[in-house]
C-alpha cells in the first residue's frame, strides 16, 4: 500500500541556514537521535491546519496567514508550522527557483546579535572564536562567513552564519538547534558580549536569477556581492540583507520586522517571476548545491573534516596559525586537518534511476557483508534530472569516480562517487 506515514518525515534536527527534507525530513526536528517523526499525511486526513494532526503546540511565523492564503500544505517542522509546498508542487517550485526566483520563509531560524561589552567588535569575534574553528577576527565589516559550533569530541553541534555589522556580530542558527545554541552562547560569551535574541523579525530568503531585480525594486541591494551583508532602508523599514542563501542560486536572505513581513513578502510575490517555495523544494535545491542539512549530513557525531566542510576553517585557526586551536574539540579537528579523517562526506550519483535515500547502507561491492558507509540525504534532483545523494564512506572509497553499491530494497545498486555541487552554483562573487 501507499504508506502515507512516510510521506513527509522530519529530519533529526536542523541545518544552518539550512533546511531540508531528506528522505524527507526537513531542517529540523528535535535535537537528538535518528528519529523519523511521522509527520505525515495520512491519505484519509489531509495535513493542513484545519484537519489532520494536532498542531497546537507548534509556533507560527509572522507569515503563517500568508502561507495558508497561498494554499500551502503546512507541516510541523522544528517546532513550527511551516509550508512544505504550495500548489505548484515540489518539482515545479524547485525548477522555478532555478529559472526565475523563489521566496522562502525561514523565520523559524534563530537570529542573534552579539554586542561586545567593550564596544569593540573584535572582542565579540575573539569570544565567538572560542566556540567555532573559524577566523572571525578577519571577518570584515559588511561580510558574512559560514561557521560551525563544535563540541569537545570534535563533533558539530550546529552550523551557522556569522556577519560583522560594524559594532556587533549577527548570527543566524538553525531552528531546531537555536535553544541549545543560545544557551551555549550565553554560557560562554556573556562575559564579553550582550546576547540579544531577535524575536521580532522575520527571515525570508529570495533565491534565483530574478532575485536581484525583484529585491532591487524595493531596496538598494544590486551592488552587494556573495556573502556581503548590509542594513538597507526600505518602505518596509530597515532590512537586514545578506547576499546568500541555501539553494546554490544567487539571492538574498532578508530579516524584516515582523509587522512588515507579510507586506514585504506580498510586494516580492507581486513581482514578475517570484513564487513562494516550500521546504520540500528547499531540500532538493540545497542537495543539488551540495549543501549540508544539519542533523542529516552533519551532526554531533561528525567532525568538520569528516563532513568535508573544513574549507570553512582558515589557516590562522589551524596548526601553526596565529590563533591555532582554542575551540572545542581542537585536538581531534587539528589532527584530522593534518592527517585526514577515517571517513568522509561525499556526493553520490546512482547509476540507475532509483533514488537512494537517507539511511541507505553503502557497500564496496555486490556481495560483501561489511558496509563502508551510509547515505545521509538522497532525493531526485529536478534540475539535474536524476537522483542524487550524499553520505559518508570510509576514506579509501571517497575518491571521485569510485564505484560503490547502495542496498535499496534488498538489492545492491551501483552508484558513483561524485563531486559536489551536483549543479554548479550561481553565486554573484
Amino acid at each position: 500500500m501507499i504508506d502515507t506515514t512516510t510521506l513527509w518525515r522530519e529530519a533529526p534536527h536542523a541545518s544552518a541556514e539550512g533546511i531540508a527534507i531528506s528522505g524527507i525530513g526537513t531542517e529540523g526536528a528535535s535535537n537528538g537521535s535518528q528519529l523519523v517523526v511521522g509527520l505525515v499525511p495520512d491519505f484519509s486526513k489531509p495535513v493542513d491546519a484545519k484537519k489532520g494532526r494536532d498542531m497546537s503546540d507548534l509556533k507560527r511565523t509572522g507569515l503563517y496567514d500568508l502561507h495558508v492564503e497561498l494554499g500551502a500544505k503546512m507541516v510541523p517542522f522544528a517546532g513550527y508550522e511551516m509550508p512544505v509546498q504550495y500548489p505548484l508542487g515540489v518539482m515545479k517550485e524547485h525548477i522555478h527557483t532555478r529559472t526565475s526566483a523563489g521566496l522562502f520563509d525561514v523565520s523559524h531560524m534563530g537570529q542573534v546579535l552579539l554586542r561586545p561589552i567593550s564596544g569593540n567588535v573584535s572582542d565579540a569575534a575573539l569570544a565567538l572564536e572560542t566556540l567555532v574553528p573559524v577566523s572571525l577576527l578577519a571577518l570584515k565589516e559588511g561580510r558574512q562567513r559560514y561557521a560551525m559550533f563544535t563540541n569537545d569530541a570534535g563533533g558539530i553541534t550546529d552550523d551557522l552564519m556569522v556577519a560583522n555589522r560594524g559594532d556587533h556580530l549577527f548570527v543566524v542558527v538553525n531552528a531546531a538547534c537555536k535553544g541549545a545554541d543560545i544557551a551555549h552562547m550565553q554560557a560562554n560569551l556573556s562575559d564579553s558580549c550582550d546576547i540579544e535574541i531577535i524575536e521580532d523579525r522575520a527571515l525570508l530568503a529570495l533565491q534565483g536569477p530574478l532575485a536581484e531585480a525583484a529585491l532591487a525594486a524595493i531596496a538598494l541591494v544590486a551592488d552587494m556581492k556573495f556573502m556581503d551583508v548590509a542594513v538597507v532602508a526600505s518602505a518596509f523599514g530597515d532590512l537586514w540583507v545578506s547576499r546568500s542563501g541555501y539553494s546554490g542560486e544567487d539571492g538574498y536572505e532578508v530579516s524584516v520586522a515582523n509587522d512588515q513581513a507579510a507586506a514585504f513578502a506580498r510586494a516580492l510575490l507581486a513581482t514578475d517571476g517570484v513564487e513562494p517555495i516550500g521546504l520540500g523544494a528547499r531540500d532538493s535545491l540545497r542537495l543539488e548545491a551540495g549543501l549540508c542539512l544539519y542533523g542529516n549530513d552533519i551532526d554531533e557525531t561528525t567532525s568538520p573534516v569528516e563532513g568535508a566542510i573544513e574549507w570553512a576553517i582558515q589557516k590562522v585557526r589551524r596548526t601553526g596559525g596565529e590563533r591555532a586551536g582554542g575551540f572545542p574539540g581542537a585536538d581531534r579537528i587539528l589532527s584530522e586537518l593534518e592527517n585526514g579523517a577515517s571517513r568522509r562526506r561525499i556526493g553520490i550519483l546512482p547509476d540507475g534511476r532509483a533514488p537512494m535515500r537517507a539511511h541507505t547502507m553503502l557497500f564496496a561491492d555486490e556481495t560483501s557483508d561489511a558496509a563502508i558507509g551510509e547515505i545521509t540525504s538522497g532525493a531526485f534532483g529536478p534540475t539535474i534530472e536524476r537522483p542524487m545523494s550524499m553520505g559518508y564512506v570510509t576514506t579509501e572509497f571517497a575518491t571521485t569516480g569510485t564505484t560503490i553499491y547502495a542496498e535499496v530494497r534488498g538489492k545492491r545498486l551501483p552508484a558513483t562517487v561524485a563531486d559536489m555541487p551536483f549543479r554548479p552554483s550561481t553565486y554573484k562573487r
Partner: protein
Amino acid sequence: MKFTEEHEWLRIEGDLVVVGITEHAAEQLGDVVFIELPDTDQEVAKDDEVVVIESVKAASDILAPIDGEIVEVNAMLVDEPGKVNDDPQGEAWFIKMKPADLSQMDEMMDEAAYKKFIG
C-alpha cells in the same frame, strides 16, 4: 471501476484486471520520480508488494489488490514516471492481472464510496 483502501483502482478489461493508483493518491504522493515494475508471467497473492513508486517525498509499495497472475506491465512508466501525476486513472496504469478469483473485487468500494472514504 473499483477502489481499495490502499488507494488503488481496478478496472476490468476483458478477462484481465487493470490496476493503478487513484488521483487522490497521486496528488498526495506529489511528483513521481521513479517506478519499479514487477516481472510478468508471475503469480502473486493479494497484498504482495508488486510495484515500487517513489515521489519527491517518499518511496511507497503498491500491493497486489487481488490474487492472480501479472500478465502485463506499463513499461512506459519507467521512462516517464511523471505520467502517474498527469493521468493516474488512465494512461498511467501499472499492471494487468489475470485474476484468480474475481469475487475478491466484490467487497471493494465503488467510486462514490471511495470519494466518501477519502473525505
